[in-house]
């Protein structure tokens, strides 16, 4: 067997025409380096799961992909992240439009203190995606439908979103992200604040969204990664250790560290 170098392995040349890529990505919080030479490809219309022990840089990496790290003071980024072969850190890129193309769902449900309707309508309104109230209604309804929430909330759209249950709030946040028709949806531990039943619903939803969107999900639950994702990337101490088909990662990991984490020997 040939000797495989670390970067050759993580770059995984097998993926053709990825939706997004990261190349030699290094990130520093002030003087602390949080990501080391990360090379990762995100395949279109698949769910990619990022796993790894706490503090290994999963969220940090995820936030690099829609430049949310720009909102944090003292962050320096080296390397390249592309969306459809264009560098998203290029000066010519409009961050605001970029984030409309790459939606994000956060760990804790964070609906705005507005009505359910206004939450979903927020994105289309600020981006001027609609010309009439009817069009807006249409987008709100389809987004809620896609997020599997329409049946539960269609009679209470003017009510405050903060009155929904945690699971409903999280699906509302997904609907809110879907409403701006992004190409990629990033999710940072979207189920960690939810009970098992709400979690099952969100997982089901992620599986359905896969047919229209490219999804990257951070999760601390390996079962969840196994259930929802097609590809899995394992991070450890700021480095991408291994990435591959989810089946392969869970049944036949190449790296000792991956094996150790998956079998629960450390983490």
């Amino acid at each position, binding site marked *: 067997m040939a000797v495989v170098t670390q970067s050759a392995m993580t770059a995984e040349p097998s993926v053709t025409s990825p939706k997004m890529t990261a190349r030699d990505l290094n990130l520093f919080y002030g003087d602390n380096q949080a990501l080391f030479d990360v090379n990762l490809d995100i395949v279109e219309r698949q769910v990619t799961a990022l796993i790894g022990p706490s503090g290994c840089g999963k969220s940090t990496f995820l936030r690099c992909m829609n430049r*949310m790290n720009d909102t944090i003071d003292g962050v320096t980024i080296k390397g390249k992240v592309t969306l459809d072969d264009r560098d998203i850190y290029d000066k010519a890129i409009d961050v605001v439009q970029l984030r409309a193309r790459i939606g994000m769902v956060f760990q804790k449900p964070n609906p705005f203190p507005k009505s359910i309707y206004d939450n979903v309508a927020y994105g289309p309104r600020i981006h001027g995606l609609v010309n009439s109230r009817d069009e807006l209604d249409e987008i709100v309804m389809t987004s809620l439908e896609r997020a599997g929430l329409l049946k539960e909330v269609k009679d209470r759209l003017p009510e405050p979103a903060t009155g929904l249950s945690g699971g409903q709030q999280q699906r509302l946040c997904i609907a809110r992200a879907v409403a701006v028709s992004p190409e990629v949806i990033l999710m940072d531990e979207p189920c960690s604040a939810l009970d098992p039943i709400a979690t099952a619903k969100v997982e089901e939803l992620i599986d359905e969204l896969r047919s229209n969107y490219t999804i990257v999900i951070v999760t601390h639950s390996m079962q969840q990664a196994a259930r929802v994702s097609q590809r899995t990337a394992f991070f450890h101490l700021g480095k991408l250790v291994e990435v591959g088909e989810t089946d392969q990662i869970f049944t036949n990991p190449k790296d000792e560290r991956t094996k150790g984490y998956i079998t629960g020997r450390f983490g």
Partner: protein
Amino acid sequence: MSLTYLLLAVALLCAVSFYFGRQRAVALSNGRYSNLHSLPAHYGMYTALWCGLPALGLLLVWMMFEGTIIQTMIVADLPEEVTSNSGLLSLALNSISQIAAGGGEHLTVSPEIVEAGHRLANLNTIANAALIVVMVSVALVGLALSYRRISSEMRARNNVERLFRYIMIVCSAIAILSTVGIVFSLLFEALHFFGKVSPLDFLFGLEWSPQTAIRADQVASDGAFGAIPLFVGTLLITLIAMFVAVPVGLFSAIYMGEYASPKFRAVAKPALEILAGVPTVVYGFFAALTVAPFLRDNGAVLGLDVSSESALAAGLVMGVMIIPFVSSLSDDVMSQVPKSLRDGSYGLGATKSETIRHVIFPAALPGIVGAVLLAVSRAIGETMIVVMAAGLAANMTVNPLQAVTTVTVQIVTLLVGDQEFDSAKTLSAFALGLLLFLITLGLNVFALKVVQKYREKYD
């Protein structure tokens, strides 16, 4: 002052008892503090408190009753014809205390009074000596008793805890009682006023000219006590102040909180807060000597007739005074909007100003409203600036270029100078004060309710 020495002595005794109490506990512990129920310092504290508190309590009671008791003793010995007339009596008591203080040689008074003066001096000396003796012995007794109670099982820690609770209860009681006292005296005097002037005339009258005849033979009006012009003036100035303070304060808060780099913020925020530290009297003469003439001269250039004391000048300067108040309060509420909401908005591709307008500001709005209401109640109660810059004429006008007067200004002018305490003119100050108090109280309560409601939402 003997009182200062006395307090120092008690403090010293407390320190001594702390030391002894602690020593005793250490001795009882046989070198292991875990043999004791509480830490040695707790035992020290326990003895110190028992030494100091009863003595201080005694001092308080003593000071409350000493004067009355001594006076009763003096009065009892005065001749009948003096005590039966209250005017003569207060005159006599005055002379007596002068003589007792060592003066009064120029007074032409009867020998009884002189003798009473010496007696008073005597009594005072005795009382002082007695106070010292009694206080020190109470402190010593407290020390001895608490010292003897110290044992390894004694729960000094819990006892100290309880004593501190009582101390705090007493302190808050003092704060509350003085507020209640002030309110009641306001209420009482205002009622007195309403006995002379009908409340309806006061509340709805359109004319304010409190000049009344002091002596029956003087030519003067009966006075008119309609408070409306004063409140219109107050409102006008408050409104102008808010027109300055709300936008400027709010936008500077938004800039400081959302846009400014940490470095700039570290400099600019304290600088803004210095504005809050400028004494209002400085703002006052700034308004009267700089802003008002400036407005008048420029008004003249524009062909406007600006009076040299105008509501505009006072309102503008008051607005500047309130800026830091509005900006620091709204900065607080906006920074309490959770980061997750900002992230949610940025994550959807919103710009900074969109996020501020559509997410942060609406979420913080109740808190900002509360901040503005608190600022309004401050503006209404503000006195110094308007006294100096707004004028005294109780004009009923909403023209900001004219002189108006405010409730606080009138209260000041009513009470400055020689007054007959019982006249309607003087008493009307209390009625105005009461009304002002009720209005600001109402505003504050409402504002705090609004702010609280907002707080609950994110907890």
